[in-house]
């Protein structure tokens, strides 16, 4: 994929993979020699937009568009900006934070940053180095630099767009000047993003030196066939089956989708974004509570469809967003809600375990179909780590989905996407999906590098892809699985496969932590510490460490890694921190946390 081309220093013998090449051939098929000459110029022009990463900048006033993404949103915004810039003949350089050479920063003149926030107010993995650099002593003065930051976030999190905010401050602190106010975009970022792009482009055009050869304004859009959030691929459900025993607390299911290998390529570590159908029962209830009719017409950005369909597949019902509460309070004019809307803290607590249905019930209000459609937010696609390797399953994608169940405000709740995937979808049903690349969670470049795979719960999914890949490619590297869940007998996910891999010699070590087995109660981080001698040996021997799963688990693991570095490496605290940091810098400590 395009960022494989980006990461390689200089041009490899053939930068395109087979698929890309065939696409290119299709694209130029039947062009006259004259047209081909033109096209080659055109392509060269595109090339100039995305030079190979790390190639030092020559002293021009080129603009760099830097993005840091986890789920692909920031990237899509950045790409759109780059395209429009190109269309206006502005030369820009689009680069992902993890491919950005930090010492270039001092040379930058114009820097546009699009960055999302992850974890609890943390920057995406790809931007961590950039942040450390700017926070560290080696950080350069940036008096020459002008910049703009577009933040993506979700105001239902406590630290809204924290990463963007911090980066903004860091840049200013080092002397850079903002072109204009940072923009913090919420989950519905499309509108804000296009306004913002407009403002950026005006400025860029002014920046543009007249002598700069401009490129014929052409949209790259149709030349590029990549299914994404805005253009998802329609996959089909092959099979779903429960893989935790009936008495297990958590209903986890194995989902297999059929895809077209020509159109969908993915790599171990990637996630799948998908759209889902809301629970018909919930839609019924909403309709009866509002007294609206199922086939009342509504229009969602230009498209007109029935209310039932809009509620079913387009609008967000199971995550209650603060903005929806605000909008609803405006409508219902309930003083209580009005007060709530003023207090972010209270508001977040309020939406916590609630769904839109609760608003309707507790604070009834008159609303017409279109009004309802406007108040509700567009459905957010959900992400799931891909649990298969395309080297083993050309035309399939496997997911490991845990049904999200919880009780809140007198109701049993079921997550929207996980509920659909584990309870309602049936074989043969279509599902709209797109691959979310995760360059910061990848198997080692070398087939012989040992890997340590740490996971709790569904965090184990990508490791199934890892081992499938290593088996298919006949990789020799040792591997060690560290897994935690509740009960050995109930939810040791994919147990029989791990045992087979062990028999086959592909998996060398399995360490387990079950938190609810009496007698044996323990957690992953504790288990890691028990195995510290072995773990440290593996790391010293160059092993690559992966952590995937929930935020708390990851934090715990990080703590015991520090403890292990001190205990085994005889390092004092700062040194231990630095040790872990260096692992991360070398890409030997990769995390995929949700």
């Amino acid at each position, binding site marked *: 994929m395009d960022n494989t081309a980006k990461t390689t220093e200089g041009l490899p013998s053939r930068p395109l993979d087979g698929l890309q090449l065939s696409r290119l051939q299709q694209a130029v098929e039947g062009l006259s020699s004259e047209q081909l000459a033109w096209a080659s110029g055109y392509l060269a022009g595109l090339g100039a937009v995305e030079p190979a990463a790390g190639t030092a900048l020559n002293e021009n006033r080129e603009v760099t568009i830097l993005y840091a993404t986890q789920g692909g949103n920031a990237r899509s915004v950045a790409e759109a900006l780059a395209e429009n810039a190109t269309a206006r003949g502005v030369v820009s350089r689009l680069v992902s934070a993890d491919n950005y050479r930090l010492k270039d920063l001092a040379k930058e003149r114009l820097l546009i940053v699009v960055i999302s926030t992850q974890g609890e107010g943390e920057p995406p993995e790809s931007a961590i180095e950039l942040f450390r650099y700017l926070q560290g002593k080696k950080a350069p003065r940036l008096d020459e630099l002008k910049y703009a930051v577009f933040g993506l976030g979700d105001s239902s999190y406590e630290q809204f767009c924290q990463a963007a905010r911090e980066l903004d401050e860091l840049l200013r602190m080092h002397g850079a000047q903002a072109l204009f106010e940072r923009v913090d975009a919420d989950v519905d970022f499309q509108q804000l993003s296009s306004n913002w792009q407009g403002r950026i482009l005006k400025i860029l055009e002014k920046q543009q030196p007249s002598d700069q050869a401009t490129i014929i304004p052409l949209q790259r859009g149709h030349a590029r066939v990549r299914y994404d959030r805005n253009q998802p691929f329609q996959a089909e459900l092959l099979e779903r089956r429960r893989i935790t025993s009936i008495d297990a607390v958590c209903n986890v299911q194995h989902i297999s989708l059929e895809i077209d290998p020509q159109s969908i390529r993915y790599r171990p570590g990637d996630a799948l974004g998908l759209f889902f159908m809301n629970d018909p029962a919930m839609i019924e209830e909403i309709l009866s509570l509002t007294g609206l009719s199922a086939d009342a017409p509504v229009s969602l950005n230009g498209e007109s469809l029935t209310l039932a369909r809009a509620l079913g597949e387009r609008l967000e019902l199971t995550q209650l967003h603060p903005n929806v509460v605000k909008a609803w309070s405006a409508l219902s004019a309930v003083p209580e809600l009005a007060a709530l809307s003023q207090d972010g803290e209270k508001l977040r607590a309020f939406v916590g375990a609630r769904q839109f249905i609760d608003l309707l019930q507790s604070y009834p209000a008159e609303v017409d179909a279109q009004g309802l459609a406007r108040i509700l937010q567009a459905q957010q696609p959900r992400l799931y780590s891909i649990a298969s390797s395309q080297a083993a399953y050309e035309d399939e994608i496997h997911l490991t989905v845990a049904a999200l169940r919880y009780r809140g405000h007198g109701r049993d709740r079921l997550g929207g996407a996980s509920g659909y995937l584990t309870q309602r979808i049936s074989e043969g049903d279509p599902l709209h999906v797109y691959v979310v690349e995760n360059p910061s969670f990848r198997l080692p470049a070398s087939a012989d590098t040992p890997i340590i795979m740490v996971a709790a719960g569904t965090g184990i999914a990508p490791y199934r892809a890892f081992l499938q890949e290593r088996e298919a490619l006949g990789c020799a590297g040792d591997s060690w699985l560290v897994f935690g869940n509740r009960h050995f007998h109930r939810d040791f996910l994919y147990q029989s496969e791990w045992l087979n891999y062990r028999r086959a010699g592909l998996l060398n070590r399995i360490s*387990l932590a079950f938190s609810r087995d009496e*007698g044996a109660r323990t957690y992953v981080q504790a288990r890691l510490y028990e195995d510290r001698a072995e773990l440290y040996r593996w790391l010293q021997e160059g092993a690559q460490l992966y952590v995937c799963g929930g935020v708390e688990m990851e934090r715990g693991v990080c703590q015991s890694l520090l403890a292990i570095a001190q205990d085994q490496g005889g390092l004092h605290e700062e040194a231990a921190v630095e040790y872990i940091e260096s692992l991360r810098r070398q890409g030997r400590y990769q995390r995929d946390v949700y």
Partner: protein
Amino acid sequence: MDIKVNPNELIKANSRYLRGTLRKSLADQASGALMPDDAQISKFHGFYEQDDRDQRLERQRQFLEPYYSFMLRARLPGGICTPQQWLAIDAVGREMGNGTIRLTTRQTFQYHGILKRNLKPLIRRINQAMIDSIGGCGDVNRNVLCNPNPERSALHGEVYHWARRISEHLLPKTRAYHEIWLDGKPVAGGESEPVYGKTYLPRKFKTAVAIPPHNDVDVYTNDLGFVSIAEGDRLLGFNVLAGGGMGATHDDPTTFPRLADELGFIPPQQTLAVAEAVVGVQRDFGDRVSRRHARLKYTIERLGLAAFVTEVERRAGLRFEPVRSVRFTGQGDRYGWVEDGQGRWHLTLYIENGRVADTPGAKLMSGLREIAGNHRGDFRITPNQNLIVAGVPEDQKATIEAIARRHDLLAEDRSPTRLASIACVALPTCPQAMAEAERYFPEFLRKIEEMAGRHGIDRQAIVMRMTGCPNGCARPYVAEIGLVGKGPGRYNLQLGGAGTGLRLNRLFRKNLNESELLQTLDGLFCIYASDRLPEERFGDFVVRRGLVNRVVNPAEAPHESA
């Protein structure tokens, strides 16, 4: 070693006197099972790897390994334990097993559903109660049966003492058990197995001691049998029997149930020498290629009885005296109270299928716990899966009886046939089961009782035994009516046992489902009701009427009906 030799022989040979890699297997958290070879070795330590067969397919679909757990079988010669020991047995069963205790047809108890990580703690616990599981299973001498005959305590005491000594004498001498489970120190210097050698026996070996006229131990179905000969309460010696066994394989004529041959009479002090000699012959002449033909019964068929006897006499350095005549009257238990002539009382309780549990219906487990709390004598597990509260002083009778009645532990109000019948464990734990037994037998009996009632023969006890497969764990081939599992819901119908354990029955009809069984038996009950002689047992009747031919030579056509 001969390459043809059975794989189990190599496993034993390489096990360093039954250590194998058990420690490693136990340490592995990723699987609830042992490594395959250790699953064989574990039997010598008294436990079997099993999995819940009800869950197999489902778990396979769930990418989960089978639900592995272990069955542990204790060694309890003669089935005797103290109330204190029972309390320990009970507590362990509740805390570390599946919450039940299973009394077996060999006078001991089993735990089911033990998780791998609980094995060691469990063995340590029962060890604190002076109970072990060495040789509970495996290719060695198994738990030694001894008629729990309460009404002649003096004689029983002496005979039981011999049963214990046989058990101890034939116990494996390896320290593996103590090292692995009890953290015993490895003994310095080379180990040896004076009786067994490092490959032990070709197959399991079973010994029973009977006190006539009771044959509740089914002495003739054992590899080695001792029938006590007494004058009053004084033990004169034993008639020695050898070559009995039940196990067979469906439709394999080279396998068959067989009753033991009578070798001759010996005085008590030669008991151990003879036991060791018989074991020795089996060790050296038994089939180590085909486990299916490795039991002593086949060794004797192959050597010929005369040759076998000579070899035993040579090794034991004695000559057998002619067998003394004895009379056996029955193979079942005698329920209720009996007095032993010394003012002490004994109460035989009824435990259906030997399954001690607390169910909504009956709180057997709690009941026995309460009795153990009040009891000062001992407990005796019978070879029919029941329990005797033995040695109760007059003034305690009422208390014990009240507790027993409150917990439905008494035989009263149950049909004679039900009281005379047993079933093996079978599903869901037994990997060999082809059909249900324990879980289904009680309900099947209800239908039989109803039928017997219609024919007016419900006062007559019929020894009926059901097993889930032809291995014969409930000794079905010496029952008047044997039901041997053939497939889900299907059984072979065996007829013609004597009710005393002295005659094998014979296959009557193959592979019948419930309605076919009931129909067939209905017909038979009908003629029996009309044509039976006074007091004539059902098993004797069907033979006298030639409905089945008496088995003369067990080796001949055992799997042909009629």
